[in-house]
C-alpha cells in the first residue's frame, strides 16, 4: 500500500512538471467543447432552395410562401427558367430546386391533381434525404390546407376525417442540438485521457529505459499498475467535472440526473479504458506504435458509439459488435443520466456490463505486463 503511494507521488510530480500537460488538460476541453458542440449540429436550417415557378398563380405563390416562411428553407433565387437554377446549383449556391409547372393551378382545379418537382443535390445523401422529408412535409401540409379550404365537405360524413397530431418534445423542448453533443464531448475527453495518456506514459518509460529500473525492484505488478493508472483516473474525472462546469456555464446543459451516479459510472468506464491503454502499452515498443494502435481502436469505437449517428440505424451485426464497444456504453450512460435523469434502476445493466469488462481488461493487461521479460 505504501508502495502505491510512492508511485502515485512520483507520477503526479512528473505529470504536473510536464509543461505541456496542464494546457492539454484545461485548454483541450475548452476548445473541444466550444468548437465541437457549436459545429456539430445536424440541424437543418437554411437549406438553399431555388424556386422555378412557371405558373405564378395564386396557389403556386401560396405554396412558395410556405417555403419562404419555413425556418428550414431559405429562398436563394427565383426564376422561370430551369437553367438558371441548375447553374446556381452547379456553383454550389443552391441545394434544392422547386419546379412548379405552368399549369399547376389549372390542373389542380380541373383534375384534382398536379405535380411539382424537387431537384435535390444529393451529394450529401443525408442532407438530401432530410431536405426532401421537410419539403414533402411542407407540401403535404399545404395540401391539407387547400383541401379544407376548397373542398367543403359537411362534417359528420365520411371523408372529412381529420386526425390531429400533437407533438411534444421532452427533455429538450427547444430542440437544442447542442444539448446532445455536450455529453458526447465529455465522454470523448474522458476517453482520450484514459486511453492515450495513461498508455503512452508507460510506453514512454519503456522507451527511455526507466522501466527497467522499476522492474528490478521488488515492486508487485498490481502496485505498479495501480500507481500508474490512478493518477489518470483522477485527472480524467477532474476533466469530466471541468467539462461539466463548462457545459453548464456556456451551453446551460441540463443536469437532470445524479452527479454522483455520473461520476461513479465514469470511474467504472475508466477502468475499461485505462485497462485498454495498459494493454496497448504491453504490446507497443515505441510511443509511435502505441499512438497508432490506440488511434485505430479509438476511431473505430468512436464512430460506432453513437457519437454522430445513432446506434439503432446500424445493421444488426454491427449492433451486436457494439457489445464490445465501451464507448458506446458510456455515451449512452452520460446522455441518459444528464439529459433524462436516469437512475441506477434504469441503467444497472449497462453499468454491470462495464464493470465486468473493466475487471477483465485490467486483469488481462496486468497479466500481460511482465517484470521479467
Amino acid at each position, binding site marked *: 500500500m*505504501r*508502495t502505491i503511494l510512492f508511485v502515485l507521488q*512520483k507520477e503526479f510530480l512528473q505529470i504536473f512538471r*510536464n509543461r505541456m500537460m496542464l494546457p492539454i488538460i484545461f485548454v483541450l476541453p475548452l476548445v473541444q467543447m466550444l468548437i465541437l458542440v457549436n459545429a456539430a449540429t445536424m440541424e437543418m436550417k437554411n437549406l438553399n432552395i431555388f424556386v422555378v415557378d412557371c405558373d405564378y398563380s395564386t396557389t403556386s405563390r401560396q405554396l412558395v410562401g410556405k417555403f419562404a416562411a419555413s425556418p428550414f428553407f431559405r429562398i436563394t433565387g427565383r426564376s422561370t427558367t430551369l437553367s438558371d437554377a441548375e447553374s446556381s446549383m452547379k456553383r454550389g449556391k443552391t441545394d434544392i430546386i422547386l419546379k412548379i409547372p405552368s399549369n399547376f393551378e389549372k390542373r389542380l382545379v380541373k383534375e384534382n391533381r398536379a405535380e411539382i418537382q424537387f431537384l435535390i443535390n444529393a451529394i450529401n445523401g443525408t442532407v438530401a434525404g432530410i431536405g426532401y422529408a421537410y419539403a414533402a412535409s411542407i407540401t403535404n401540409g399545404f395540401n391539407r390546407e387547400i383541401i379544407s379550404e376548397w373542398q367543403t365537405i359537411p362534417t359528420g360524413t365520411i371523408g372529412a376525417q381529420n386526425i390531429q397530431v400533437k407533438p411534444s418534445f421532452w427533455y429538450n423542448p427547444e430542440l437544442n442540438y447542442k444539448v446532445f453533443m455536450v455529453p458526447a464531448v465529455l465522454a470523448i475527453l474522458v476517453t482520450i485521457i484514459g486511453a492515450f495518456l495513461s498508455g503512452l506514459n508507460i510506453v514512454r518509460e519503456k522507451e527511455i529505459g526507466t522501466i*527497467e*529500473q522499476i522492474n528490478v*525492484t*521488488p515492486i508487485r505488478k498490481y502496485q505498479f499498475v495501480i500507481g500508474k493508472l490512478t493518477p489518470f483516473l483522477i485527472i480524467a474525472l477532474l476533466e469530466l467535472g471541468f467539462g461539466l462546469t463548462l457545459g453548464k456555464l456556456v451551453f446551460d446543459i441540463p443536469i437532470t440526473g445524479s452527479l454522483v451516479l455520473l461520476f461513479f459510472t465514469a470511474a467504472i468506464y475508466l477502468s475499461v479504458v485505462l485497462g485498454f491503454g495498459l494493454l496497448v502499452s504491453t504490446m507497443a515498443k515505441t510511443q509511435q506504435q502505441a499512438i497508432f494502435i490506440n488511434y485505430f481502436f479509438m476511431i473505430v469505437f468512436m464512430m460506432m458509439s453513437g457519437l454522430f449517428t445513432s446506434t439503432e440505424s446500424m445493421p444488426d451485426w454491427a449492433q451486436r459488435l457494439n457489445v464490445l464497444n465501451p464507448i458506446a456504453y458510456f455515451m449512452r450512460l452520460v446522455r441518459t443520466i444528464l439529459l433524462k435523469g436516469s437512475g441506477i434502476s434504469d441503467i444497472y445493466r449497462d453499468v454491470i456490463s462495464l464493470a465486468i469488462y473493466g475487471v477483465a481488461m485490467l486483469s488481462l493487461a496486468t497479466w500481460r505486463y511482465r517484470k521479467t521479460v
Partner: protein
Amino acid sequence: MNHSTPIIRVRNLVKKFGDFIANDSLTFDVFSGEIFGFLGANGAGKTTAIRILSGLSKPTSGEISVAGFDIYHQTEQIKRSIGYMSQKFSLYEDLTITENIHFYGGIYGLKRKEIKAQTTILLEKLGMNDYKNQLIRDLPLGWQQKLAFSVAIFHNPKIVFLDEPTSGVDPITRRQFWNLIYEAAHDGITVFVTTHYMDEAEYCDRVSMMVDGRIIALDSPEKLVRTNGVANMNEVFLKLARSSTLEVQAT
C-alpha cells in the same frame, strides 16, 4: 570476503535469442564482498548475462542462484536483496535528486524518516547538498552517474549489479566513481560490474572475460597478467580474444 558459499552461483547459463546464442553455457561463482568484473567487447553477451542475474530477463537454461534464491522461482525475493544500475543511468530526468531518492527508497520499503535521514547523509558525502532540488537533466553526466549508483545501493542490498557504469564519462570522474565502488565493497556489498574498459579490470578482485558469449578466462587480474606473460589486462584481452577467435576459425 567469504569464500565458502558463493553469493552468486551460475552453472551452465544459456541464453538464446532465436538461433543466436548470446550466452553459451556460462559457469562461475561470485563470493560475498568481492568486486567481480565481467569483461568483454561490445556484443559479447555481458549485458544479457547481467540482466538475467538481476531478474530482468529469463534464461533459456541453466542453474542460477542469487543471494541464495533460485532465479526461476524466487525472482521477486532476489529483487529485494539486489541493486541495479543500467547503462542509461536510469534516474528520472524530470524529477529532482531528492525526489528520485525518495521514490526508490520508498519502493524498497524504507520508512520516510529513514529516507530523509539517509538522503541528507548521502548528499553531504557526495557534496551535492546544495543541488538537492535540481532536476536530474540539469546535472552533469558524472553527477548523474554517481547518483544512479548511490540510488542503486541506497537500500543496502547484498549485491549491486552495474552495467557499464562508466561509459561516456571522463577518466577523472571514472576514478572518483571507482572510489565509490570500493567504499561499497568495503561496507560488505558484493559488486558485479560489466565493462569494456580493460584498465578498470585492474580494480576488481576477480574478473571473467567473455568473447562471443563464452567465458574464456576467469581469475584475479594479477594472476591473469602473470600467466599470460603480458604487461596489463588490455594485453591479456587482446591475446586471449585473438586466440579464441582463431580457435573458432580453426574448427
